[in-house]
């Protein structure tokens, strides 16, 4: 990892292995797999295993993606199927021409 790149810390809160949670994980990985300029760190937290964290981190909706760095903190809720909103919400720039590809492979958690 190059030090010139900004570090983005992401936490994805899920509750067990629900289809929606799995979809969110898949979608997030896909977004991150794109050629972004930033440096990522992704942590997936299962609240069923650690319920107290829901309170500590003020989580209501599942799944919730939290960008804890850089500040300010922002939250994106849902299965992240709307890639465009994720990208805008996380305020991450990506390499030209990759947008369409990522969107085409988005998995939807809604059944």
């Amino acid at each position, binding site marked *: 990892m190059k030090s010139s790149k900004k570090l983005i810390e992401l936490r994805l*809160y899920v*509750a067990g292995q*629900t289809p*929606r949670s799995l*979809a*969110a994980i898949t*979608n997030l990985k896909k977004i991150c797999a794109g050629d972004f300029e930033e440096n990522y760190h992704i942590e997936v937290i299962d*609240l*069923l295993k650690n*319920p*107290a964290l*829901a*309170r500590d981190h*003020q*989580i*209501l*909706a*599942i*799944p*919730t993606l939290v960008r804890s760095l850089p500040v*300010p*903190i*922002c*939250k*994106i*809720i*849902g*299965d*992240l*199927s*709307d*890639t465009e*909103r*994720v990208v*805008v*919400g996380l305020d991450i720039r990506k390499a030209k021409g990759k947008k369409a590809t990522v969107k085409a492979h988005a998995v*939807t*958690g*809604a059944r």
Partner: protein
Amino acid sequence: MPSRANRRTAGLLPLEKTPTGIPGFDEISEGGLPKGRTTIICGGAGCGKTMLGIEFLVRGAQEYNEPGVLMAFEETPEDIARNVASLGFDIEDLANKKKLFLDYISVEPHEIQESGDYDLEGLFIRLQSAVDAVGAKRVMFDTLEALFSGFSNPGILRAEFRRLFRWLKDRGLTTVITAERGEGTLTRHGLEEYVSDCVVLLDHRIKDQISARRLRIVKYRGTKHGADEYPFLIDERGMSILPLTSLQLQHTVSSERISSGVPDLDEMLEGKGYFRGSSILVTGTAGSGKTTLAASFVDAACRRGERCLYIDFEESRDQVARNMNSVGIDLDPWSKKGLLTHEAWRPTQFGIEMHLLRIHKLIEKVQPHCVVIDPITNLMNGSTDKEVYSMLMRLLDFLKVAGITAIFISLTSGGTELERTTVGISSLTDTWILLRDLELNGERNRCLYVLKSRGMAHSNQLREFVITGQGLRLLPVYIGPGGVLTGSSRVTQESAERAEAVQKQQEIERKQQDAARKRLTIQAQVTALQAELDAVEKEEKTLNREEKDREKQDREDLDRLAKSRGSR
């Protein structure tokens, strides 16, 4: 099929209820909130929704050993703790003792973006862990509707609400959710569509610049409940509701008699005084001695060692004590001993329900034997006659059920008919004493009469009522051809009578003297005649003797003559 019918009735257990512990609420709801179900508390801003909910949790934890969970969406636990500290609730202490769990749920719409499908499993996880942490039986959400501002998809929210209420019901958690009142609906977001077991509506209205809080159970599925609007009060001991219509005319009565504090008045009431537990109405114009009469009663009651509550809307405690001292009634020692509780507040301070609620609370706190309300007429500020009448009726019933002897003082304003109380409560009271001024010959004198007194042969006399340095006295009034005479007229009449009596006495004495003199005169005459008689008798005797002497002389002369002739 008999077996089927049996099974049906056997399975129909009455709805179980969870007591709230809030004074009055359990009475109007006949036991409390539906156990294991969800209740909506709705109302406008500042009407006490949160207070009601928190008191439900706190009292549950303190009094019924039912721990609770508070899911707060609007205020942080610190804020809530501070807010309810003024009601005497120590939430932090309860949280430390694991009797209460507070979870603050922050909903910040500006930092949340939505991308795709989601649910509120996080809320369920938090709720589950909170319930597990304290073994909660009660849950409160304040207010769930805050979620509508945080999440833009109402479809998801509604589905999640439905799931939440089912979740709570499945776990048998007695739940209270607060909700803002909407336009034309009970709650702004129609929560009552999901939860419809029990809906409590709170209202805070201003009438004539005086605030009045009301509570109404709009709906309570599967049970009967008081359907009226009940006034309630939030003060330093929490919330209390006046269960006004839950009373009935079924109180037991006492035949014990207690002194009115004025021996002469007792004399008018069969010589025994009032019945214990009766209600006495004292009406009169300004300055006719109503307060003094009530103070005499209080003094006598305290002397018997009974607790008294004096509710004053006109004078402060010290002022009453000073004034009563001037007529020989010393109330200070009773206050110091704790027998007399004197509470004074301005009638304009609240509406009538608040007054009565406050009186209720005082009575419950003091547990008095006797209560004086001076004067009830001041309660009428800003209320209609009908309201006052029904409220006083309820207060009277409450006092009667409690067996408390009560004196209600009612001021009759000048010019109105004396035998008519402004609020028409005379028919509700047992004894009615009327004080009135009689204006005659340039002075006003007080008169008292017992207009009615149920259950006793009371005097029908109109008595003059005198306030002396040693308390009250009743004097018989003079009833002459010119009508009833009181005051100086009576005194004049009495002295006139005295003068007449003296005159009569003198007349008799004079006649007696005359007779004596006459007797003496006659006696003198008798003596004179006797003397005359004696003189005549004496003369008669002298004459007789002289006659005898002459006869004797004559005989001797004859003898001598004969002798001389014979011897020669």
